[in-house]
């Protein structure tokens, strides 16, 4: 199993969710994060002074999937999250040793189904 961790723009979350559901991937975990990268952060005004933040709001999506689904999931995310502008984000893929479903105690691939 792999964990596919995507950092995306908050406004693409809905689109990514839809794309994943079309793939029949129904499980995922979403976290609000802030990202630093090539993209400039927002510029805030405070009584005439301006601050440019180094961090931009992002959303992290974690999908743990069977090894065989990796490619399709990554593709679906890239497609639905892409705007073409700097700041679209990254996907990190890492190996997961085991999964447990808390409700049933199931382990391994069964826990994901």
């Amino acid at each position: 199993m792999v964990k596919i961790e995507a950092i995306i723009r908050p406004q693409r979350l809905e689109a990514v969710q839809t794309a994943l559901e079309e793939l029949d991937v129904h499980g995922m975990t979403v976290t609000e994060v802030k990202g630093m990268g090539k993209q400039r952060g927002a510029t805030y005004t405070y009584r005439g002074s301006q601050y440019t933040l180094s961090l931009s709001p992002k959303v992290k999506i974690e999908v743990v999937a069977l090894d065989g689904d990796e490619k399709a999931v990554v593709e679906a995310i890239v497609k639905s999250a892409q705007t073409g502008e700097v700041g679209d984000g990254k996907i990190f893929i890492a190996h997961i040793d085991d999964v447990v479903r808390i409700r049933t105690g199931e382990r391994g691939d069964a826990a994901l189904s």
Partner: protein
Amino acid sequence: MTPCLASPETKIDEYVKMSDPRRRGNSIPGNLMKKNRFLAVAAGLALSAAAIADTPDPTAMAKGISLPDSVWMVVATVLVLVMTPALAMFYGGMVRRKNALSSMMHSFIMMGVISIVWLFLTYSLAFGKTSNGFIGNLEYAWGHIPMAHANTDGAVPNIPAGLHMLYQLMFAIITPALISGAVAERMKFGAYVAFTTIWSIVVYAPIACWVWNDNGWLNKLGALDFAGGTVVHFASGMAALAACLMLGKRKAVENKEPILPNNLTMTLVGAGLLWFGWIGFNAGSALALNKLAIGAFVATHMAAAAGMIGWLICEKLRIGKATALGAASGLVAGLVAITPAAGYVQPVPGALIGFIAGIVCCYSVNLKYRFGFDDSLDVVGVHGVGGFLGAILTGVFASIVANPTIADQLKGGQLMLIFHQFIGAIVIGAFSFVASLIILATIKAFTPLRATEEEEIEGMDEALHGEAAYNL
């Protein structure tokens, strides 16, 4: 002079000496001030004139001004003043987090811009003498408003003109601010200010003149609008409809994304403060502390209460839950509908009007789904529908027992009054709708009305104002 009057005069002199009214910081001769006011109160006395001639207090109110009425109207004015920040809370809590400030700014900026336009121009257009019944003259324009005397036309003789100007200003401020709920989360700030300012001059000032000016043509027709059910609520509701149509739907609505209110606690508190301020709005519209003011206070309070109950019952029946936003919306719906009726109805009919409005508006906020326009915060559903409903129900429930001065309007019977109410509302609503379309189209010829899609996604706060509401 008969001898029996000599002695009172002495008394007065003594009294005036005792109440030496030098205010802190001013050293003017003690016995010069406040005499006039004092004597005005005792104005039945023959000797007053003489006393006034002797030692006029230059800061006292003019003869004819009622001090208790004036105190009351100062109170009513600050109560209506606070309604606009309250509206900012009510609306600001309902939009998404990224638009909270821009939505509140829509209300606050009206307190700035409309005040100045009113001082220089629109008060006079609305309340200056009018021969044609359509628009006032410029007698009070450019800030020429007396502070201790009533308006020269005598329409409101019991309070100083400056105070009348301020009281009416507060209505002029909140009316366009109400519209902002319909355009929230997508209209450009500059275009919004341009629209509301022009609307205030071209739409609000005339209709205020038609309905409230002594010689206004709708006033003479016999339509009743105690505190602005048509001028304020129905007019802004129709302008809101025009704006929705011109602006189109928010992206999130098109994409069927959930749109969640950022802070309903703020919306609830805003509704509470609107209730508080609305007492000044409705009871103050008696322009005096009389039977009508008290009657309007009672009817207004009961309508708000019953509106809340009506909406909650409707929600409970339809979806099984009574919501906090429903309570807030219902009380506002009740207040909207009682506005034209407040000084004309008895307590129980007042409650009934609120209750009906609570139920009707609970349904009418869904019209936008049926007809496919995007009225962000339901200005059409609450102020449009509620304002119209209130105008009609005013015709149904107006009673000579509640208000003995409307015998004329009720001469033709309740049905005839309902007909007049209908005409009055339709005329104002149609005028506001059409004029709003034209104003918006004109502005659009110069500058876009609507933020770009990116700005909409980013949120108005950051995109247009360079700010974030919360950094929690």
